[in-house]
C-alpha cells in the first residue's frame, strides 16, 4: 500500500471538514468503548487475563526460534508447506508463484492486514488474476477503490447510503431497492458466494499460530474465512511470525482478549482452526495448503527497544479509544495501520523519516494503554519515537531549539524569573481589559484556533509571593 503518512497534517485537516464522516466516527468513539467496557467487566478479572497474556507473549518472544521451529515441524507433519519470507516483495511473489503453479484464475481472499501491508492484491490483479475480497467491509472498500480506515472494520467510514449506491453502480443486477441493511448484505452475500465456489485459491490471515499443533487460528464474524479456507483447492495463510503462541490454550486466552477488546462480543460467530490439507477420510477441505510467515522488519523490532509492539493482537481497541483517531479517521494516517498502534508500527515497519508526524499525533492521554489487551505502553513508545525524531533531526528546528532553550532557562531560576516576571507583567497589563489575546508574536500555533488567556495580572506568582513575604505579612 502506498505510504502517505507524512501528509498526516494536510489529510487530517481535510478529514476534520467532512461532517458526515466525522459524525459517524464520533458514534464509533462512543459506542465501541462502551461495548468493550461492558464485555471486559462481564468477563470478570479481565486485567488478570491481560497480565497472563503479557507473560505468555514475552515468554514466546524470548524463545521465538524454538516456538517457530516447533510450529514449522508440526505444520509440515500435517502436510502444510511453510515459507519464511523476509519482505513484502517476497511474500507477494511467493503467493503469485503458488497461484501460477496451479493455473489459478480466481482468488477468494479473507481479511488480512498483512496482505494490505504487502500490497498483494495489486500484484495479483496486475498478473491477471481475479481477486475478490470476501470480508464484507473489505469487499466494500475494494469495490470503492479505497483502503481500510480501521483494522477491524475496514469500511466503518462508509454510510449505508454510500454502500447502497456503490452496489447499485457495481453490480449489474437490474432493478432493486436495497433499502435495508439486510438487503444490502444479502446482495453482497450472493456475489461473494459465487466467488467462493469458483475460486482456485483461497487466501486468509491468522490471529494466532499454535506451535504445539502447527495449527493456525482465525476469528471472523461472517464465516467468510472458512469458505476461503475450505472450498478452493489451494489455501494460502499469509501471516507474520509474531502470531506464534506455544499452546492451544494460549490461543484461547488470546481469543478471549481479542474479541472483547475489538467488538465487545463475548465470542465471534466463528473461531476456526486450520491444521492442514484434506486427509484421506476428510469429505472436504483444500488439497494443498501453504503458510507464509512474513518478517518485514519485525526481527528488527524484536531486537529494538520497541519489541513490546510485537505483542499487539490487532484488536483495534486503541483506535476506538483514541480521540485523535476518532477525530480524523484512519485514512489520515496514510498507511495500513492507523491510531496509536499504527503510529508506533508505521514508522517501525517503514521508516521514521517517512512517518514522523504520527508519533506526534498523541496527547499522551493514556486511554489506549488503559484498554490495550496486550498491555503495550503505547504512549511511552510514542514518546520514545518522538525522541528518535529529535535525535534524527526530523523535527522542525524551531521546535527543537525552542524546547531546548526553554529547558535550559528552567535551570537558571534567576534569569527565568526576571524574564518571565517582566513579560508576564506587561502581558497582564495589556490583556487586563479583554482578558485574552487574539494574536501574540510567536504564538501562531496556539492562536490559529484559540485566544490566549491573558495572565491574571499583578505579575507572576513568584513575584507576588516574594513581595508578600517582604511585607512580612500574611501569605494567603
Amino acid at each position, binding site marked *: 500500500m502506498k505510504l502517505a503518512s507524512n501528509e498526516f497534517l494536510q489529510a487530517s485537516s481535510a478529514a476534520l471538514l467532512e461532517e458526515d464522516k466525522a459524525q459517524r466516527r464520533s458514534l464509533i468513539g462512543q459506542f465501541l468503548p462502551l461495548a468493550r467496557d461492558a464485555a471486559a467487566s462481564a468477563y470478570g478479572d479481565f486485567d488478570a487475563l491481560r497480565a497472563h497474556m503479557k507473560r505468555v507473549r514475552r515468554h514466546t518472544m524470548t524463545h521465538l526460534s524454538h516456538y517457530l521451529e516447533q510450529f514449522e515441524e508440526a505444520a509440515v507433519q500435517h502436510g502444510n508447506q511453510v515459507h519464511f519470507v523476509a519482505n513484502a516483495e517476497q511474500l507477494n511473489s511467493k503467493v503469485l508463484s503458488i497461484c501460477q503453479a496451479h493455473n489459478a484464475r480466481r482468488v477468494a481472499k479473507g481479511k488480512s492486514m498483512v496482505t494490505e501491508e504487502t500490497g498483494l492484491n495489486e500484484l495479483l490483479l496486475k498478473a491477471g488474476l481475479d481477486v475478490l475480497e470476501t470480508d464484507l467491509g473489505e469487499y466494500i472498500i475494494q469495490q470503492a477503490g479505497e483502503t481500510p480506515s480501521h483494522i477491524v472494520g475496514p469500511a466503518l467510514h462508509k454510510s449505508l447510503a454510500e454502500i447502497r449506491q456503490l452496489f447499485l453502480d457495481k453490480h449489474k443486477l437490474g432493478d432493486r431497492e436495497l433499502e435495508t441493511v439486510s438487503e444490502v448484505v444479502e446482495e453482497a452475500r450472493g456475489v461473494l458466494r459465487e466467488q467462493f465456489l469458483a475460486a482456485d485459491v483461497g487466501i486468509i490471515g491468522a490471529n494466532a499460530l499454535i506451535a504445539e499443533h502447527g495449527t493456525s487460528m482465525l476469528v471472523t464474524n461472517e464465516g467468510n474465512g472458512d469458505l476461503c479456507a475450505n472450498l478452493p483447492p489451494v489455501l494460502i495463510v499469509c501471516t507474520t511470525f509474531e502470531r506464534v503462541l506455544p499452546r492451544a490454550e494460549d490461543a484461547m486466552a488470546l481469543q478471549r482478549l481479542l474479541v472483547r477488546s475489538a467488538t465487545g462480543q463475548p465470542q465471534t460467530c466463528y473461531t476456526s482452526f486450520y491444521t492442514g490439507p484434506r486427509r484421506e477420510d476428510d469429505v472436504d477441505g483444500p488439497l494443498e495448503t501453504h503458510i507464509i510467515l512474513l518478517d518485514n522488519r519485525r526481527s528488527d523490532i524484536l531486537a529494538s527497544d520497541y519489541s513490546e509492539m510485537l505483542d499487539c493482537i490487532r484488536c483495534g481497541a486503541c483506535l476506538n479509544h483514541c480521540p*485523535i483517531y476518532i477525530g480524523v479517521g484512519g485514512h489520515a494516517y496514510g498507511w495500513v495501520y492507523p491510531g496509536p498502534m499504527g503510529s508506533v508500527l508505521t514508522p517501525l515497519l517503514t521508516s521514521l523519516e517517512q512517518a514522523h508526524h504520527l508519533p506526534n499525533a498523541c496527547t499522551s492521554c493514556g486511554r489506549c494503554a488503559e484498554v490495550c489487551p496486550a498491555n503495550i505502553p503505547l504512549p511511552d513508545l510514542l514518546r520514545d519515537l518522538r*525522541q528518535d525524531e529529535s535525535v534524527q533531526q526530523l523535527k522542525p528546528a524551531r521546535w527543537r531549539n525552542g524546547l531546548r532553550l526553554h529547558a535550559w532557562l528552567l535551570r537558571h531560576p534567576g534569569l527565568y524569573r526576571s524574564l518571565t516576571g517582566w513579560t508576564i507583567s506587561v502581558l497582564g497589563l495589556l490583556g487586563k481589559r479583554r482578558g485574552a489575546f487574539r494574536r501574540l508574536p510567536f504564538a501562531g500555533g496556539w492562536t490559529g484556533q484559540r485566544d490566549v488567556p491573558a495572565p*491574571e495580572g*499583578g*505579575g507572576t506568582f*513568584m513575584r507576588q509571593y516574594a513581595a508578600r513575604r517582604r511585607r512580612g505579612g500574611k*501569605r494567603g
Partner: protein
Amino acid sequence: MDKPHPKRKRSRQRRDVALMVTCLADLMRPSVGFSAIRLLERAGCRVTVPEQQTCCGQPAYNSGEVDAAVPVARAVIEAFEPFDYVVVPSGSCAGMLSHHYPALFEGEWHQRALALSAKTWELTRFLTEVARLPAPRHKPLESAVTYHDSCAALRELGVHQQPRQLLQEQCGVQVSELSQNQVCCGFGGTFCARMPEISAKMADDKLDNAVASGATIVAAGDLGCLLHLSGRARRRGLKLEFRHVAELLAGDPRGPGIGEGRE
C-alpha cells in the same frame, strides 16, 4: 494509585509541605498558587514555596527532548527533597514527578526520584487522603459546576472522585457531569500547537459537552486544560467560566475567570 498510605501524624503536629506552584500557575494564574497555600494551611500544613522551582520539565520531556528534561528533573528533585510532602495543584505535573521522573534515571538518582515520587501529591488527593480540610467558612457556590478530569490526574494518579467530594463538602456543589468525561480535551502540551486543528476539534467536543451539562462554571485541576479550553471558548464566543478547582475550594473566586477581562 498504589501510593503507600502515609501514617497519620497527630493532628497537632503540622505537616511540612512544599508547594510546587507549577509554571502555568506561576505565569498565568497566581491565584491558583495562593488558593493552594490557603487550603493547605487551613488543613493544618506548614507551607513552603521553594525558591529554586521553575517547571517540572514536561514540555521538553513529552516532545522527545528527553536529555534536556533530565537536568530539569534533577533540579526539581534537589529543590523538593528536603520536605515531607510535595503538593502540586496539577495532575500532569504531579504525574511527571511521581511517574516519569523515576524512569529518567538509574542508580542513585533513580532512588532519589523514587523517594520524591512517594511523597508527591496532587492537591485534591492530598486534601482528601492526607490532610483533611475543616468545614468551610465561606458561602456555598450558587452556580452549576462541571468538572473536567485531566488525563494525567485520572489515569496516572487515580484522581476522579476527590475533587468532586471536595466541591461537595466545601462549596455545597454537586458536579454536573460531562458526558465522555474520560476523554482528553486536546491540550496535550506542545500537541496543541503542533496539531492545532485536531486539538481544537477535541476542545470543541469537550466544550459542547460542558454546555450540554448545564453548568456555567467549568472547573478542572490542571491549568493546561483550562487555558486551552477557555482560549477556545473565547474564540467561539461561548459563555462559560473557567476556574481551577483550588480557586473554588478556597472560596475566593471573585476576580474574573480564566481568559475573562474586566471590561
